[in-house]
Structure formats: structure tokens, C-alpha cells
């Protein structure tokens, strides 16, 4: 078995596609229609294009428990998932300039530095740098 896919629930796939590609810098990998306006929409890291794909999944629109769980995480400030970066501070500076909102500014936690932002599609996402 191989890990090739990570799923992120989003409220609006098109809006998520724009945010994750234009602001975060991911590349679109697969985009196919699933009926009812839904898409199988995956992205990859620009610097690791054969790495795992990120699935922007419209689950909260169709499955109420998914929406409830996502809302609860958002309210608690909990990240849905996290992405590795080389330098949290410079990524924070870059994203702040693109009007991305952070709930946790770059913070050292022992051997890692973290920051948490809002992906505008229902999730908090954590950036992590290993120190």
C-alpha cells in the first residue's frame, strides 16, 4: 500500500483551487467531473510533483457530519492538516502580503516552528518548519 492522496474538505472547489494555486503555489494535477457540479480535483506541490496529491473535496456540501466536524475544528482553531516549509517566517511574510489571515503567528515549539492560517474554504492549515 502507498500513501498518495490527502483529502481536504472545501466549501467551494473553484474558490479553493484559486486559493491553493494562486496564493499557496500548488499545481493542479487532476480535474475531472463527477456530476452535479462536483469535481475530482487534485493538486501537487510545485517542488515535489510526484509526491502525494491534495484532494479538494466538496464533502461539507453533501454530507452534514463533515460540515459539522469542519466547523468545530475551525471554531477551535485546530488545523485540518499541515504543510512543511523551509522557513515559516518568510512564508508567513509572503502570505500576509497576499492578505492571508493567520490565527497563530510564527511560533517556536521546541524543535519546530509553526504558524496557522485560514484557507478561506473552511479550514485552518498549519505551516511547519523543523528546527
Amino acid at each position: 500500500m502507498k500513501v498518495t492522496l490527502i483529502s481536504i474538505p472545501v466549501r467551494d472547489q473553484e474558490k479553493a483551487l484559486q486559493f491553493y494555486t494562486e496564493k499557496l503555489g500548488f499545481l493542479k494535477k487532476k480535474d475531472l467531473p463527477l456530476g452535479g457540479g462536483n469535481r475530482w480535483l487534485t493538486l501537487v506541490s510545485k517542488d515535489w510533483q510526484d509526491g502525494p496529491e491534495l484532494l479538494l473535496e466538496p464533502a461539507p456540501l453533501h454530507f452534514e457530519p463533515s460540515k459539522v466536524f469542519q466547523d468545530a475544528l475551525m471554531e477551535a482553531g485546530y488545523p485540518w492538516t499541515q504543510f512543511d516549509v523551509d522557513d515559516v517566517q518568510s512564508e508567513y511574510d509572503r502570505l500576509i502580503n497576499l492578505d492571508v489571515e493567520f490565527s497563530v503567528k510564527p511560533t517556536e515549539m521546541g524543535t519546530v516552528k509553526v504558524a496557522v492560517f485560514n484557507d478561506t474554504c473552511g479550514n485552518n492549515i498549519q505551516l511547519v518548519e523543523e528546527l
Partner: protein
Amino acid sequence: MTFYEKELDRIRDVVYSNEGQINTVIGIRNYIENNYDVDLNLDVLSHMQYVSKYHLLRLFKKYYGQTPRQYLIDKRIEKAKEHLVNDMSVTETCFAVGFESLGSFSTLFKRKIGKSPAKFQKEQLSRSKIDREF
């Protein structure tokens, strides 16, 4: 303050309160990052930070979740992939990332990546050729 921020504070207090230990392991990690291509072992690393090698092993595992040896091997394999993608030969790559035997490099690479260094390189190079042609 959100629930998550409170959790970060709690974890910081419980896990990351010993600044001396954290500075020690961060120093070790940085040393591995900058010297993965030479012969590294616990004796060298422990001497560098003036701690016993068994203490160092325990500390590193406590904060990074793997032993210095495992961390070093992952670093070498990651760098080897970069070299192979950039068309360096398998033998050159092996020595450039600090392995002393081509056999152990190839075996380890295959175990970690699922294919031999030569096969990995061939696939990567043919993939970039296809990308250029289409």
C-alpha cells in the same frame, strides 16, 4: 485564545520546557544537515555536544521521533534523489551523499524508495523527456 492555542501552550510546557536539551538536539540536527556526506556516527555527534552517546540517542529520539542514524539515512536518500534527478551517476551519487559501499547504498535506496537508484534515475529522466516532448 482558541482551544488550539491553549493546546500549543500545554504541549510547549509538557514537551518543550527543557531549553538545554532542545538546543543540544537542534545542534545535532544542524550538524547532520551540514555533514551528511561524511562519515558520521554517534561518537562524533556526542563528542560535539559533550553528552554521552546513549543520552544523545535518547534525546534525539525524544524530540525528532527517530534516531540520529535514521534521520541521517533519510537525509542521504533525499539528497541522493536530487543528485540522480540531476543526472549524476549512481556511483558518484553514492559517495556524494556519504555512503561507502555501492551495494549498501543500492539496497537501502531500494528499500526506502521501492526501486533501485538506476531504475529511479531512468524513470525520472524519461519522465522529464516526455514532459518536454508533449
